[in-house]
């Protein structure tokens, strides 16, 4: 189980390998979120961030078979096409791996204290939270 909040980039392939070293694992689902067209700075709440992610992961483990998982979220200045976040879940079964991975991402979006500030030509502006993200999290209830 790895949870990391860091400014450095990460290697998804390596993280997937690290959680796959076990013959009971038949399925690894993963997700990478990337910066699209606009550079941004990600602020977070040190301490609470790791704690919020750990709670989301624990909730996922109580719902599905999660043999191992890795969650990495970056903060600081990020450029277009940079990786922002990754979630990888290893399980015996693909249904569990997919569900737990998507669940963790949906809750990261609404429960983990990160805030994006975009740098556009007109200046910097805070990204507004999306109603679609609340909806995505609500459907797991």
């Amino acid at each position: 189980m790895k949870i990391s909040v860091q400014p450095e980039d990460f290697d998804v392939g390596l993280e997937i390998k690290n959680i796959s070293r076990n013959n009971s694992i038949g399925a690894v689902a993963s997700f990478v979120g990337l910066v699209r067209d606009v550079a941004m700075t990600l602020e977070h709440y040190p301490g609470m961030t790791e704690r919020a992610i750990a709670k989301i992961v624990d909730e996922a483990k109580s719902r599905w078979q999660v043999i191992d998982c890795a969650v990495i979220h970056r903060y600081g200045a990020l450029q277009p096409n940079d990786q922002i976040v990754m979630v990888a879940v290893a399980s015996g079964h693909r249904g569990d791996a997919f569900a737990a991975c998507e669940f963790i991402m949906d809750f990261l979006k609404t429960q983990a204290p990160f805030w994006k500030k975009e740098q556009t030509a007109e200046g910097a502006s805070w990204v507004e939270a999306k109603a679609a993200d609340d909806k995505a999290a609500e459907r797991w209830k």
Partner: protein
Amino acid sequence: MKVKVLYFASIREKLGRDAEELDLPADVATIAALRSHLRTRGGAWADALAEGRLLRAAVNQDMAQPAAAIKAGDEVAFFPPVTGG
């Protein structure tokens, strides 16, 4: 009752402050009460913490509802809805 209060993102910028130590009156014992208490400072405080604004709060690094209790030594945080991931 002494507490630590943190501000993040747009709230932090509007208030020009990221953290402070406060000694609260005994009747300021919930997130909602602390929020109105801070609004009485007026200016940016009245605006950034206005009732109509969508704000989130945490007590001791756990997301907390407006009715959540605050006790001495707590770390309370105010911030806008999160936008990570």
